[in-house]
C-alpha cells in the first residue's frame, strides 16, 4: 500500500503484471508469496499492475528495489531469472504510457535523480500471455522456487538497509 506522507520504507518490492493475461500476472502472484513471508516495517510491497512512469512516486527515496515480473529471455517457460542490472537491458523510452515499462520507469527515475542505488529483478519466463486468468502449469510449478529466491534477495536488501528491525 502506497504511503501518502512521511519518509518511505527503505526497501520496495514492486510487482508488475496483468492478471488478465495468464502468465503476465507472474509478478503479482510472486508478490503475494513474498508478502506472506515477510513482515518488516522497512519494506513496502506495491502491486504496480501495468502502470509505467506513474509508479515513479513509489521508487523515490528508496535504498533498494526488487522488481517482480514476467521476464522473457527465450529460456524454457518456468525458468527463474534474476537480473542485477535491469537498467542496462530494458528498452527505455516506452511505446506508450499505457504499458508498464520497467525500463522507462527506471530511466525516468534516473533522469530525476530518484533511482535507488540497488535495483534487481526476479521473474519467471512465461509460457503464455493470452487473455485469461491463472498461470500456466510450467510457471505455477516454478512459483515456490521463485518466491524463495525473492525472499532471499529481500532479506539481503533488508540486511543492508538502514533502520532497525521492529520488535515482534
Amino acid at each position, binding site marked *: 500500500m502506497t504511503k*501518502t506522507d512521511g519518509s518511505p520504507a527503505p526497501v520496495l518490492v514492486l510487482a508488475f503484471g496483468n492478471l488478465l493475461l495468464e502468465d503476465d500476472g507472474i509478478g503479482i502472484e510472486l508478490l503475494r508469496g513474498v508478502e506472506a513471508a515477510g513482515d518488516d516495517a522497512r519494506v513496502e510491497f506495491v502491486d504496480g499492475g501495468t502502470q509505467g512512469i506513474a509508479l515513479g512516486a513509489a521508487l523515490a527515496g528508496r535504498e533498494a528495489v526488487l522488481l517482480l515480473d514476467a521476464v522473457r529471455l527465450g529460456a524454457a517457460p518456468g525458468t527463474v531469472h*534474476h537480473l542485477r542490472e535491469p537498467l*542496462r537491458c530494458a*528498452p527505455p523510452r516506452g511505446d*506508450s504510457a499505457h504499458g508498464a*515499462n520497467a525500463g522507462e520507469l527506471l530511466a*525516468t527515475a534516473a533522469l530525476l535523480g530518484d533511482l535507488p542505488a540497488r535495483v534487481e529483478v526476479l521473474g519467471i519466463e512465461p509460457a503464455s500471455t493470452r487473455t485469461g486468468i491463472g498461470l500456466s502449469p510450467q510457471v505455477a510449478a516454478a512459483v515456490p522456487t521463485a518466491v524463495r529466491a525473492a525472499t532471499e534477495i529481500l532479506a539481503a536488501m533488508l540486511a543492508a538497509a538502514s533502520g532497525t528491525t521492529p520488535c515482534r
Partner: protein
Amino acid sequence: MATRVVVDPVTRIEGHLRVEAMLDSDNKVHEALSSGTMWRGIEVILKGRDPRDAWAFAERICGVCTTVHALASVRSVENAVGITVPKVAEIVRNIMFLTQMVQDHVIHFYHLHALDWVDVVSALSADPAATATLAQQVSPHWPKSSEGYFRDTAATLKKFVESGQLGLFANAYWGHPAYKLPPEANLMAVAHYLEALKWQKELIKIHTVFGGKNPHPNYLVGGMPCSIDLQSDNAINIERLELVRAKILEARDIVEQLYVPDLLAIASFYKDWAAIGEGLGSYMCYGDVPQNGIGDPAHFRFPRGAILHKNLGEVLPVDPTHGDEILEEVGRSWYRYPEGKAALHPWEGHTEAHYTGPKPPYEHLDENGAYSWLKTPRWKGNPVEVGPLARMLVGYASGRADFKAVVDGALGKLGVPATALFSTLGRTAARGLESQLAVGWLQDEYDRLIEALKGGDNNTADTIRWEPATWPKDCKGFGFTEAPRGALGHWIHIQDGKIANYQCVVPTTWNASPKDAQGRRGAYESALIGTPMADPQKPVEILRTIHSFDPCLACASHVYGPDGRELAVVEIG
C-alpha cells in the same frame, strides 16, 4: 536458478497499434490503415461472475486507465439494478475522475507528445539567459525561471545524454526539418517536462486518500468504500482532506502556469498544423462529472452530445442505451458474428475471434480484407471522433460559457479562427484547455465535498440493493465515463445475479477503428489523409497526428512509398 544479463526487455505493452500510410508521389498520405493487433477478451473473463466484482477485473484492463474502467463498471451495475449513489460518493468519484484526467493530460503532453514538437538535442545549444527571458514572458508567475535554473537544467540534460542513457529520448528524430522551435524554447520545454514528471508523482496521492491505494483504487457498487468524517482518526478526516486541497492547488499551478502557457507558446510556432489532421469532423461524447446524479445529463459539467460534419450550430442528442444508436461492425475485423448479423449493439455484443490476416511477421496488411483486432463502432451509422476535442466542441457548441471562455481565449492568443480547432493542433490544444477547466472543477468539487460534510452528510454508499436477491432477475445496464482519451462505455447484462454478457467500447476503438461496411475510415485513418511528409524515412508528421489522439495502445507505424515499398518502421510512443 539462471542468472542472466538481459538482452530482451522487461517490458509490457497493453496492445499494439499499427498504422500503414500510403504516400503519393509528392509525399502526401493518400490512404491509411489503422490496425489494433491485440485481442482483449475482458468480456470472456467476466461472463458468469458476480457483477459486484466486475470493477476489480475491469480496472486491470489498462495500467493508466484503472480508475475510469472501474468507474464505468460500477456505474453499469448501478444502472442495471437501479441504484442511485449518494451525493458525497458522487462528489468523491468526480474528484478522482478529474484528478486522473489532469494527471493523464499533463503526462501525455510533456512525456509523450511534446517530443514530437520539441527537439531535445537542440535544447543543449540554448542560451540559459535568453531561455530565462523567454520563460518569464511565457509564464510570468512561475517561480523557476532564472538563468541559473536553466543552466542547471541544461547541465542535467547534458550529463544524462552523455552518460549513454539517452534511452528516454532515443526514439525520436532530432534535427528533423519539421522541428521549428528555437533552442531556448526547446530548453524551456525540457525543463518543464522534468517539473511535470516530479509533480505527477504527487497529484495521484489524491487517489490514495479516497481509493485506499494506488494504482488500483477501490471502488464499490453503490458508492465509494471510503469512510469520511472530518473529526475522526479512523476515517478520511480534515487532515487527509487538507492534503487533497494542497494537491489540487499544485495541479492548478502546473496547468495554469506551465502546461497551458507552454502549449500556446509551442503552438505559435506550429500554426500550419491547424490545417493538418482534420479527420472526420464528427464528434461524440457521453459526458461526465454529474452534479445531480448520473441520470441527469443536463447537469453534467461535461455535456453529452454529438456534432456531425463540423456543424457547431447543432448539438445532437445521444442515447447509448437506445437499441440501434451505437452499433459495432466486424466486417474489417478479425471477429465473426452470428449468421446474418452485420452490426450489433453492445448489449447484444459478441466476441468470437476469427483471424484471417497474414501470418506474422508480415510486411503489410490486406487493405481489401479484415485488418484489425479492433471492431468498428458507429454512432447512428456515423464514424465519430471521441476525446478532448469532442468534449470541448460539444461544450462550446452547447453554448456553455466556461467552455467558450477558454476556447475563445486560446484562439485569440494564437490569432486563429475557430475552424483551426478541426486539426491536429486543435486536438492537442483541446487537451490543455480541458485541463484548465478540469483543475477549476476539481476545486469546485472539493468545495462541494467540504460543504456537504460540514452540513452533516457523510454517507458514501447506498447498500439497500447490495444483495443480488433484491435485483431484477434479468436486467441490463450502461455505465460510462469520459476517459482522458474519450468516451468509454461498459454495457452489462445480468441474469440471476450473474454476468450474462459484458462489452466495453473503449475510446481508442472509436478513434482507431478500421473502415466500416460503407468503406468510411475511422478517425485515425481519416486524420492522416493529406498529411505532408518532409522525409518519409522519418515520419514524425504521422506521429504528431496519431499522438494528438493520445492512443491507449503502443503502436508501430509503417510507411509505404508509391510502389508499396516499406520506407520506415517506427515505434510510436
